[in-house]
């Protein structure tokens, strides 16, 4: 990345004796949509609030568009923010809410009106201008909050779990709308969430956070398929973990439940006799031998859940259980509990968790 638009460098934040964010680094390009994903309490909000200016970093710098903004007040940063609790001004109408930032900036009345109308069009609520916030649904309120945040054309848009107070259906439609508005306006965006599906579906890149650090920053594809740490592998998606013992480090063979699996080139640094955690995504496993899958393990079917189009099967392999999904096929009945079964997979899909 030649010249990142937003650069968060070595940022640390302590509240008293407890350090909440530790050496956080992230570069974001102009127009990029980056999500912060992580469990509760990992410091997502704290990092976002430092970018907004509500918290001052204990150390480190934040640069936007080549300008160091670390010590600027929130009202000097030209950043837009959407809060989980909507935070619309209850005494102002929708139009006044959206125009608030413009009015504060001293924009002429006619220009404000034009911009507000444009915003109402973008969020597809053109007829709501004269309503008060209490007359709107949660989803509508959050769209107004989005319009209010982007009306003054901020350099950055920050969203702190904007969808978590909404019900599931609205959540999905609104997240797509946020993404499409963001793309259309080309506004650099940070989106905080603890919902991995949300992060995977709408982000250009995801920063997976844990314990105040960015564990991994990458595209959704990279994060999901090539997790850099055990935490990322476990936190994002479902994972089947098998214990294995290295039998021949040079040849890359690992014994799993008395069967050999070849993991050439994946064991970097492990010695013969080491125990490893091996992980497989459910969708990387097939029931029975399949063409193109170079490895297999045998076990016994322990659970079968018929979910309609998909059948979720759990197979016991020695002391471990793996989940896999197969598609329902009307011609073949689902496997029965207690049957012997073989699972197959490509050794290249297997993740070695360090």
């Amino acid at each position, binding site marked *: 990345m030649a010249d990142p638009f937003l650069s968060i460098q070595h940022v640390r934040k302590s509240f008293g004796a407890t350090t909440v964010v530790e050496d956080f680094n992230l570069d974001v390009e102009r127009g990029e949509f980056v999500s912060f994903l992580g469990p509760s309490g990992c410091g997502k909000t704290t990092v976002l609030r430092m970018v907004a200016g509500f918290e001052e970093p204990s150390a480190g710098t934040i640069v936007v568009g080549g300008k160091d903004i670390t010590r600027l007040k*929130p009202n000097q940063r*030209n*950043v*837009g923010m959407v809060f989980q609790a*909507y935070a*619309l001004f209850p*005494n102002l109408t929708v139009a006044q809410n959206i125009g*608030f930032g413009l009015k504060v900036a001293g924009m002429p009345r006619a220009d404000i009106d034009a911009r507000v109308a444009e915003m109402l069009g973008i969020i597809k609520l053109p007829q709501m201008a004269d309503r008060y916030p209490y007359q709107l649904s949660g989803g509508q309120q959050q769209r107004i909050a989005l319009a209010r945040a982007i009306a*003054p054309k901020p350099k950055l848009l920050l969203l702190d779990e904007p969808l978590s107070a909404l019900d599931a259906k609205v959540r999905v439609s609104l997240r797509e709308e946020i993404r499409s508005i963001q793309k259309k306006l080309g506004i650099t965006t940070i989106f905080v969430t603890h919902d991995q599906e949300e992060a995977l579906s709408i982000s250009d890149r995801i920063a997976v956070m844990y314990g105040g650090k960015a564990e991994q920053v990458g595209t959704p594809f990279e994060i999901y398929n090539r997790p850099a740490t055990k935490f990322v592998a476990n936190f994002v998606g479902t994972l089947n973990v098998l214990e294995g013992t290295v039998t021949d480090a040079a040849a890359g063979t690992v014994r799993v439940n008395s069967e050999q699996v070849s993991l050439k080139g994946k064991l970097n640094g492990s010695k013969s006799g080491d125990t490893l955690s091996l992980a497989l995504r459910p969708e990387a496993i097939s029931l029975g031998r399949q063409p193109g899958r170079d490895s297999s393990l045998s076990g016994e079917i322990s659970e079968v859940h018929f979910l309609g189009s998909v059948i979720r099967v759990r197979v016991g392999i020695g002391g471990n259980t793996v989940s896999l999904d197969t598609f329902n096929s009307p011609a073949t009945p689902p496997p029965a509990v207690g049957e012997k079964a073989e699972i197959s997979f490509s050794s290249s899909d297997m993740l070695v968790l360090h």
Partner: protein
Amino acid sequence: MKSGKFWAWLVFALGAAYFFIPLIATVEFSMRMRRGEYSFDAYKVVLGDARFQATFGYSVLAAVFTIILGVLIVVPAAYWIRLRLPQLRPIVEFITLLPLVIPAIVIVFGYIRMYGSNSPLPFLATDTGTNALLVIGYATLALPYMYRAVDTGLRTIDVRTLTEAAQILGAGWGTIITRVILPNVLIAVLSGAFLTFAIVIGEFTMASLLNRPAFGPYLQNIGANRAYEPAALAIIAFAITWGCMSLIQILSRFAPRSANRPN
């Protein structure tokens, strides 16, 4: 069940009687100025009295200044405590309760000692200074009511998030207080204002000891020297107080409804 209801009604009736009988008696008495028939003569005399108009006008003006002073002190203070110093709230609540515990006469003697004409801050040397001191004293007396009203109003909004939302949109403190906080607690501020008004209109001790031509001392003076007029005055003062209370009730219906549903 039935007897429970009976006792409840009995207690209610006793309470109502305790409240209404003196009131009705006063009304009845105030209308007996003319022998043998009821009339509003006492009210005519009172309302036509130049001193009534002067002292009432003075007290209304004092009340207006007291309300302005109270709002200027209490709104920013209560807001700041909610926003940044929540740990101070119990202490501040205690301080605002002090005027209920310390008699007004103690406060006013303190003032007279502190601000006499040969003190470094000679408030009492001039009429304007004394008027200002009276307003300050009234603001102190009204503090418990004003603070509680405003604080209750602030509780209904998400002060912190609204402040941050305004800040990130570029607003400074002045804009935040006047355009975001005050409008949302306006009804609470108004109810505090009417309570202040009611207190100031009837206040006697401070006005009398500072020798101000206020309504309270006038009431007392009339009460000591006339027969029917004090009753009429009492009813007028009562009506003013009740008018204020009803206005609070009416205004609270217009409070901006909070749309924040934080979870």
